[in-house]
């Protein structure tokens, strides 16, 4: 269990976010989308790096979160770093903490800057979910090995005779990835658990989903998504906006959708869950020395990060578990946070986190709090949309919400933000940020 460690580690150096960019989040449409994970990350980072006053080889390291890189993208961070022109001497590494991989990359960058190992780091997350690998079954792999060993025509024919039709069934990597391998529940089923536990209705979920779309549309129309850098494919197409947005979304329309995970009686639908999406988000983190050396603008500061573990079947409550010790450590109440980004893996899961903090028993038993932690101001939560409307490319979302909450603080001239997400497998991650 995550304890609220009191050490605020005053000897650590400050960690600044100087700039950031993300790709538009592109909804997966059944077949592989226009961009591989490396192309997404390069597409987002290239203009970001190009507008800096330093050369790309000035980075001390590149850290990237990614859950399922493509077969040609082993240690995708290194692939991306080299393609960005960082040069052979900039090391790069890839981190994986499922849905929080992008935040994990920021946490690692932050630690290395805080301890003085690095001064300037390119960090972020990427996922091309539409490119998730489709695999062969193990029996099929075994059969192929036997077939390749067979030398004579007769032996080959014998091997062919042993091939069973069932071997040919492909393994869809994406579906396996979205199923908890320990408790055997799909992520959607863990969300159904939360709906049951906190008595959150289908209508509440759908209303939250509609709100997500409306918030995103509003942000887009007001130009509040300036961190998006357009992507271009090689067929003359440009992708400039998140394409999962449904401006005409309504509770009535969402009510017509059938449940996906607990059929036929469940409440979690495609409409109130995060979209399966491709995207990347990249940030430049710097120490004070680097800020001074290159005369960099400062967008904000990464203050602290917290990880938490909980029951895998309740994984959607991860943010409640990760954010609580973070507030405690910094002597903060929910009201002290100006803006919140809680990743919308499922509408019900965000609502459940909010409910959990209002529930004195839950807070006492599960979060070591003397009483209810308090209320999150819904008008300051996911104000510019979230996973339900713009999608959740698993490796990228953690970086996206940190970047966006900082952009929101900048826009509203406020000071403290919280970004948090739930993590498949039963974890939560949270990052506290500030604009001084």
């Amino acid at each position: 269990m995550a304890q609220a460690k009191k050490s605020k580690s005053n000897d650590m150096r400050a960690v600044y976010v100087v700039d950031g960019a993300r790709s538009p989040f592109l909804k997966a449409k059944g077949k592989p989308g226009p961009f591989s994970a490396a192309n997404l990350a390069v597409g987002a980072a290239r203009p970001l790096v190009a507008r800096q006053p330093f050369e790309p080889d000035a980075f001390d390291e590149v850290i990237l979160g990614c859950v399922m890189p493509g077969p040609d993208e082993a240690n995708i961070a290194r692939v991306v770093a080299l393609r960005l022109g960082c040069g052979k001497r900039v090391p790069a590494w890839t981190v994986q903490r499922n849905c929080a991989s992008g935040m994990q990359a920021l946490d690692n960058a932050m630690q290395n800057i805080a301890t003085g190992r690095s001064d300037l780091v390119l960090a972020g997350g990427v996922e091309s979910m539409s490119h998730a690998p489709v695999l062969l079954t193990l029996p099929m792999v075994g059969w192929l090995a036997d077939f390749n060993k067979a030398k004579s025509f007769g032996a080959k024919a014998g091997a062919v005779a042993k091939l069973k039709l069932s071997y040919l069934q492909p393994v869809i990597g994406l579906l396996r990835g979205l199923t908890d391998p320990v408790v055997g529940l799909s992520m959607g089923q863990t969300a159904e658990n939360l709906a049951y536990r906190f008595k959150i209705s289908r209508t509440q979920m759908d209303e939250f989903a509609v709100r997500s779309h409306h918030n995103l549309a509003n942000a887009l129309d007001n130009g509040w998504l300036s961190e998006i850098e357009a992507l271009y494919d090689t067929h003359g197409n440009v992708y400039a906006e998140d394409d999962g947005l449904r401006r005409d979304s309504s509770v009535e329309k969402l009510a017509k959708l059938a449940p996906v995970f607990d059929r036929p009686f469940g409440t979690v639908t495609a409409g109130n869950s995060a979209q399966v999406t491709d995207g990347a988000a990249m940030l430049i983190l710097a120490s004070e020395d680097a800020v001074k050396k290159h005369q960099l603008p400062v967008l904000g500061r990464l203050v602290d990060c917290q990880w938490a573990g909980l029951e895998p079947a309740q994984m959607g409550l991860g943010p409640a578990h990760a954010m609580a010790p973070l507030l405690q450590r910094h002597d903060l109440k929910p009201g002290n946070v100006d803006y919140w980004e809680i990743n919308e893996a499922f509408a019900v899961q965000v609502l459940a986190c909010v409910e959990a903090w209002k529930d004195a028993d839950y807070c006492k038993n599960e979060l070591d709090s003397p009483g209810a932690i308090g209320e999150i101001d819904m008008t300051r939560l996911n104000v510019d949309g979230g996973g339900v409307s713009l999608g959740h490319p698993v490796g990228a979302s953690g970086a996206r919400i940190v970047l966006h909450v900082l952009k929101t603080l900048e826009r509203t001239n406020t000071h403290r933000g919280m970004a948090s997400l739930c993590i498949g497998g039963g974890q939560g991650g949270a990052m506290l940020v500030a604009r001084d």
Partner: protein
Amino acid sequence: MDEQAKTMRHWRWEKDGDNIVWLYADNGDASTNVLSSVVLDELNAALDQIQGHSPRGLVILSAKENGFIAGADVKEFVPLKDEHEARGLIERGQRVFDRIEALPFPVVAAIHGFCLGGGMELALACHYRIADDDPSTKLGLPEVKLGLHPGFGGTVRLPPLIGAPAAMDMILTGRSVSARAAKKMGLVNYAVPSRQMTFAARQTILKPPPRAKATGWKAWTNHGLVRPLLAAYLRRQTAQKAPQEHYPAPYAVIDMWDRYGGDPKALLAEEARSLARMVLNDTARNLIKLFFLQERIKGLGRKKGYAPTRVHVVGAGVMGGDIAAWCAMQGLTVTLQDRRHENIAKVIKRAAGLYHKILKEPRAVTAALDRLIPDIPGHGVGRADVIIEAIFEDVEAKHKLFREIEPKAKADALIATNTSSIPLQVLGKALKTPSRLVGLHFFNPVSKMQLVEIVSGPDTDAEVAQRAAAFAKHISRLPVPVKSAPGFLVNRVLMPYLMEAVILETEGVPASVIDDAALKFGMPMGPIHLADTVGLDICKSVADILSKSLGGEVPKRLEQLVSTGNLGVKSGRGFYNYKDGKPERSKPDAGYAPPADLTDRLMFRMFNECVACLREGIVEDADLLDGGVIFGTGFAPFRGGPINYIRAQGVAAMRSRLMQLEARYGQRFREDEGWASL
């Protein structure tokens, strides 16, 4: 070793513990190996020494970093006066190579970098060839590009080795192949990484495999019954690309292979006789001259220590986009600024197509695309070494842009414009330091047209122009310095020629007849088709600007087509109708006779303008004018350029033809004063 030191400057050899001799080509006077007659004589002497040691085998390789051997020494062809002398020179080389082939021990050519022309023929005379599989390895017989053909046995040894179709393709087109392609076609025995070259050569000598030759159907292509059929096919193919009257060399190759293909000895003798004839004809003389001119122009871009790495291009239209794509392919990091995503998206698509075609290797394509960075806000300006303005031709808009760019640009950044019609002194007014502005005038399509006019206005700093030329060379284009006068060089000499074509068309000469006349002269594309391709609106606007300053009239027919929206290829209709981008050419009626002075009317308008440009000092000298016009318009290269052609035809005779034209058609054929001093 003493025996070597005394006699040799260009070769050295050593014997290893396995009794294998390693013979290094190592030109004592240059960084590149070429086979001059001295080098060939020394090779002969080296073989004498080596044979005296009865080695187990011989490996021939190069001590130069850039490659094996670049070919024969073209300079030696220039002073040749008669066929007999030329033949003597060729046969001397043939004898050395025959000797290598006949050596009683295995001979291996270990090849890296370029292995071209005579170098390739030397490799062919060796018993085995091993190539470094690095992308820089290039094997080929490019003689035909100089109006020549191989002369040291290349036409004899290549067809039996790889089969006639592949051999003829290499010899007739002059294209070179990579090590891997060479392995695939049987040209080399092995393509190996450089770390394995020495070992591979040694093993080949210690355990010599059977010698390679074409087998199966490829072997049959050299059979006496097949040769005439294949030869006829090759003649037809060649005729589509290079007419025999202008380019005799490829036809000579086909003819002698057809006739003597079954008799290597006779073929070798004929190869020498034929090449001796080729060396002396005008085509080869002009192409060789052009080769040296090209080297001179490259030299204009020489600047030590200048290595730009970042380019910022503003304007993602056809020119701006193609310039950006080209620069990224040449290894530079390019930011491309435009107001519209859609324009940039089109550029990325075109760039991807170009890279796939030229770079092929998917990783190289990705790397080039990664270097081409869309930059709508224009962040790249401040980091760029070279900034190229390529927006629409509007003085106000360009002024506004330069006022934005100048304060952001690095102090030593080159600020360039790709304008084709606005004088530099006008554009420079927007700059605090007008001496910084230089013109980098590219031609469409950038990937094919090698010329870049380096335009200096009266304010342009000489050092800035020098840097612009160095930049052009850095991206493998040919810089020709020109003065900022309307049309600079290329558009100015092209425009009267295009306008005369329009007048002819208005008079009722069918467009296809006009175009055919130009093609027959040796232009790469007819003037009417060219006008349609450039866009009639663009032609008209350039013509308007030029006629204002240089006089003359823009034909009504052009205005009429533009005003009715017929803009050429891009609108599907101009002088021709276009289907899938190809013109629908109607044949003139049987019995139609084109005007006898058709070609003269077209070409003399251009010649007269060239003479005017030379007189006005738009370019420094006649050679640079010839080079500019050839590399910028594709002007018949085998004629050596317009001024070269005028002089070859006789200035007096040309003047009298021009005067006749003036008598017939008036003012527009009025002789320029410059003719008097040609």
